[in-house]
C-alpha cells in the first residue's frame, strides 16, 4: 500500500463499490416505490371497475324489481334478491377501495343512501305484491321514477369515475416518473462506474508507462556504468602493465644491486686483513671472516659490540679522556696506528697495525671502516 498508484486504484475501486451500493440501494428503494405506485394504479383500476359493476348492479336490481312486479314469479323474486345482494356487495367493496380517498366520501354516502332506498323500495314493493296492492306498487314505482334515483346513481358513479380516472392518471404519471428516476439512477451510476474504471485503467496504463520509462533510464544508466567500468578496467590494465614493466625493471635493478653487494662482500671477505664496519658510535656493525678466524669469535658475538672491547690502541701516551678514533671520525679523516692489539676469545692479544677510514654519505660521516693487519702478515 506504500505505492501511491496502488492507493489511488484502491480508492477508485472503493468509490466504484460505494457507487454500486448507492445505486443498488436507490434502485431497490425506487423499485419498492414503483411497486407501491403499481399497487395504487391497480387499486384505482379496481375502483373504476367496481364503479362500473356497481352501476350495472343498480340497473340490474332496478330491472329485476320491475320484472318481478310485472311477472310476480318466485324465480324473479329470487333474482331480485340476488341483484340487491350483489348491489350491496359491490358497494361494500367500493367503500373499502375508496376508504383512503376522503374526497369520494360524500359521493359514497350518497350511493349508500340510494342503495338503501333501493333496498327499501324492493322490500316495500314485495310486501305490497304479497298484500295484493297493485296501486301501492304503482305509486312506489312512479315515486322512484320521479325521484330519478337511477339517473342519480349514474351521475354519482360517473363523477366518481372521473375523479378516479384523474387519480389514475396522476398515479400513472408518478409511476412513470419513478421508473424514469430508476433508469436515470442506474444509468448514471453505471456511466460513473465506467468512467471511474476508465480512470483506473488510465492510471494503470500511465503507471506502467512510467515504470517502463524508469526501467529504460535504469538500463541506459547501467549501460553507461558498464561502459565506464570497461574503460576504467582498460585503464587499470594498462597501468598494471606499466607497473609490471616497472617492477620487472626494479627487480632487474635489485638483482644487479644484490649482485654488486655480493661481489663487494666477496671482495671484502677475500681480504686476509681484519675488516670492521663501525657505526658512528664505534660499535661493530659488520666484519669479515678474517676477524672470526683470528679472534675465534662468531660474527653474532661481535656485532653491536664496541670496537674498544676487542681492539686496544698502543703507541704514545695520550691525555686522559682523549679518544683518537672519536676525534678522527668527528673530523672525517683517516687514522693510522702502527701499534695496536686485537684480543681473541682466550684473551691473548695479537699485535696489529690499525687503520680507520671514515664512511661518508653526502659529506656526512656516518661511521667508519677499520682494517687491522697482523704484523706477521704484513712482514
Amino acid at each position, binding site marked *: 500500500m506504500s505505492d501511491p498508484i496502488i492507493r489511488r486504484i484502491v480508492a477508485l475501486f472503493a468509490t466504484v463499490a460505494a457507487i454500486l451500493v448507492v445505486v443498488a440501494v436507490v434502485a431497490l428503494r425506487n423499485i419498492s416505490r414503483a411497486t*407501491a405506485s*403499481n*399497487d*395504487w394504479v*391497480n*387499486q384505482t*383500476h*379496481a375502483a373504476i371497475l367496481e364503479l362500473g359493476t356497481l352501476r350495472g348492479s343498480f340497473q340490474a336490481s332496478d330491472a329485476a324489481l320491475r320484472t318481478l312486479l310485472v311477472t310476480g314469479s318466485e324465480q324473479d323474486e329470487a333474482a331480485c*334478491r*340476488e341483484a340487491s*345482494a350483489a348491489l350491496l*356487495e359491490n358497494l*361494500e*367493496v367500493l*367503500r*373499502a*377501495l375508496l*376508504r*383512503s380517498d376522503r374526497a369520494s366520501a360524500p359521493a359514497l354516502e350518497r350511493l349508500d343512501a340510494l342503495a*338503501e332506498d333501493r*333496498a327499501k323500495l324492493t322490500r316495500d314493493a314485495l310486501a305490497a305484491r304479497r298484500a295484493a296492492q297493485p296501486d301501492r306498487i304503482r305509486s312506489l314505482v312512479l315515486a322512484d321514477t320521479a325521484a330519478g334515483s337511477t339517473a342519480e346513481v349514474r351521475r354519482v358513479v360517473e363523477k366518481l369515475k372521473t375523479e378516479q380516472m384523474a387519480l389514475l392518471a396522476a398515479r400513472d404519471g408518478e409511476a412513470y416518473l419513478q421508473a424514469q428516476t430508476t433508469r436515470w439512477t442506474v444509468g448514471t451510476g453505471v456511466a460513473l462506474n465506467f468512467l471511474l474504471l476508465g480512470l483506473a485503467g488510465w492510471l494503470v496504463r500511465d503507471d506502467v508507462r512510467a515504470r517502463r520509462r524508469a526501467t529504460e533510464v535504469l538500463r541506459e544508466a547501467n549501460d553507461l556504468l558498464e561502459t565506464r567500468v570497461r574503460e576504467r578496467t582498460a585503464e587499470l590494465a594498462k597501468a598494471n602493465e606499466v607497473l609490471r614493466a616497472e617492477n620487472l625493471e626494479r627487480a632487474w635493478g635489485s638483482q644487479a644491486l644484490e649482485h654488486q653487494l655480493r661481489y663487494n662482500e666477496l671482495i671484502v671477505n677475500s681480504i686476509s686483513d681484519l675488516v670492521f664496519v663501525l657505526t658512528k658510535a664505534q660499535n661493530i656493525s659488520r666484519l669479515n671472516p678474517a676477524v672470526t678466524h683470528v679472534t675465534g669469535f662468531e660474527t653474532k658475538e661481535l656485532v653491536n659490540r664496541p670496537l674498544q672491547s676487542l681492539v686496544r690502541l698502543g703507541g704514545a701516551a695520550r691525555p686522559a679522556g682523549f679518544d683518537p678514533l672519536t676525534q678522527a671520525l668527528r673530523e672525517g679523516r683517516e687514522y693510522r696506528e702502527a701499534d695496536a692489539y686485537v684480543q681473541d676469545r682466550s684473551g691473548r692479544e695479537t699485535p696489529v697495525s690499525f687503520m680507520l677510514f671514515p664512511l661518508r654519505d653526502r659529506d656526512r660521516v656516518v661511521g667508519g671502516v677499520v682494517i687491522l693487519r697482523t704484523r706477521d702478515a704484513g712482514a
Partner: protein
Amino acid sequence: MAVAVLLAPGPASALTLQELLAEKELTPKKFASRFADFEYEFAADVLPADVFLQRRKGDCDDYAVLAGHVLRHHRQTPRLIHVRMVGRVAHAVCYVTESKAYLDYNNRKYAINVERCGPSLRDIATQVAESFKANWTSVSEFTYSYEEDRKRFGVTVVKTDPPANDPDRNPPPAKAPR
C-alpha cells in the same frame, strides 16, 4: 412438481356430502385429498354441495364453500376468503384457523394440498396472489350458507391501505343491521 403429483392420493369415487360429514377426524389435508381428481369449471353461482360432488367439477367458490361447510361440522373454524387480483376473476379459499393454513382448489392435486399461512387477510391475500404470480387489490372475508344461497361479505382489506389500519386487525364498530 411431477413428484408431488405422483405422491398425490388416487381419485375418490362416489363422494357425497354425507360421507364427508360422517368421516371421523377429517382434517383439512384429508378433505383436500378427496378432491385430487376433481376438474375445474367456472360458474357464476355457488353449486349446491351434492351437485359439485356428483359432477366432480366446480370452481374455487364451490370448493371453499364446501370446505367451510364440512370443516365447521367437524368443529373446526373455517374462514371463507375472497381475494381480488388484477385482471383476474376473484379467487376464493377456505382458511382453517386451527391448521393455520388455507385450502385452495388450485392446490388440490398436490401432496401439499394445504398452504400454511398467517391468519390476517393481508397475509392470506399475499400468499394467494403469489401462487398466481399476480398482484392483489383487495380481500374480503365472507360467509355462505347453502340454505340461504347467498354470500355475505364482512371486512374488506385493501392492499394500498397501511397494514396497521386493516379492519381485521382493528375491527370497526358494529353497524346496525340494514
